[in-house]
């Protein structure tokens, strides 16, 4: 009787630890998700992206941003392709799209 109860308790403990080991990673990972609305929506809607490594990138406030799930990320050290993108295309920076009078005009982004 005693042995049966001990076995049951052990099984329950095993099951709890096993369940925790499966759930904990996902729960802890959630804390590391960075979800911010940046670059601003208005900037994304008026600026062509640069495509690099299969993702659209936006140059904003002197950084290259890309979306990674619900987070935006930037590079500590810009990849060569992005660092030289505008120079190699004879541009001063991102083109902006203006919806004012005579819209459809492009201007170069300076900041």
């Amino acid at each position, binding site marked *: 009787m005693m042995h049966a109860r001990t076995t049951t308790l052990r099984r329950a403990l095993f099951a709890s630890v096993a369940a925790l080991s499966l759930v*904990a*990673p996902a729960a*802890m990972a959630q804390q590391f998700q960075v979800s*911010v609305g940046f670059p601003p*929506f*208005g900037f994304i809607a*008026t600026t062509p992206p640069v*495509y690099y490594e299969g993702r659209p990138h936006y140059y904003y406030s002197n950084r290259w941003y890309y*979306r990674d799930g619900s987070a935006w990320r930037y590079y500590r*050290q810009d990849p060569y392709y992005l660092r030289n993108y505008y120079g190699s295309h004879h541009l001063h920076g991102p083109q902006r799209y203006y919806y004012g009078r005579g819209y459809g005009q492009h201007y170069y982004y300076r900041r």
Partner: protein
Amino acid sequence: MPTSRSATVTGLTLCLGLGLTGCSAHLTTASTVPEPPPESVAVTPPPGEPQEDQAVVQLEQRHRHHHHGGLTRFISMSLDTLGVEDEKRPQVMRLQSDLEACLTPAREIEQGLLMTLADGIAVGAIDKSRVDGITDSLEPAVAAEKDCSATALDQLHAVLSPSERIALAEKVRAHFEVWREVNYQERAAAGGRIPRLGRLARELNLTDAQVQQIQASLPLAMTTQDGTFKRRQAEERLSEFATAFVNDRFEARTISSYENREIGLYGTKRMVLFYEAVTPALTPPQRQQLAEQLREFASRPPAVSQN
């Protein structure tokens, strides 16, 4: 018995170890995947931009005055800045023209509405029955846009690369958020600031008394409005569309979320309510200035980008 206890401890240790390993792997993955580019870091938002971004100001003006087309219009506008490869541009421009053609009936009705509002504002009294008649005629025109634009949308999906589809979905979301920010005045009902009013106050040099008068009459006008904007539902639809569009297979007609009615009609009704509340508080020169502004918005042609 000791053997059994030892086995239990070993088992528990193993299980916990596996869990922590999984946890560690998950943490590493969450901060770097997919395919981490070199030296990337997660972003914390910097302080807001001090000066106004004129491209964004003009975009907001456009979203304040053109509501027809809903999601289809956001898609079409997203093509303005998609930055597709050179060889695809003619195709994308043709598909954007096709989408714009589907929006033409509703756009013409909306132009008529803006002109009617401008005429009413100029003389200090908006003709409500005429405005309501125009708004009612907008509904079937907006409803027809989905079927009309489905083929163009399917073709667009086929033309774009996976990364361009991701960019398009992101831009549609961005247009929706800008539109929502300038039109969805939930805060006004709770006595909060009305974004549209702040812009108008600067443009027309409204006095504090005028702003307060308008601010006081707006929440009352909005509580009498038929229907409300279901923000959560709109966001879910948008997410459903975005998820479907970035997939390899896409068929616009089968997506229930691809819906223009709510955004198009809600935005139009709110715009009308806003100008009905604003007009009595304005001086004659301010009314003339605002009327001219609306006529100018009404006369802007649809654009097909050079991207």
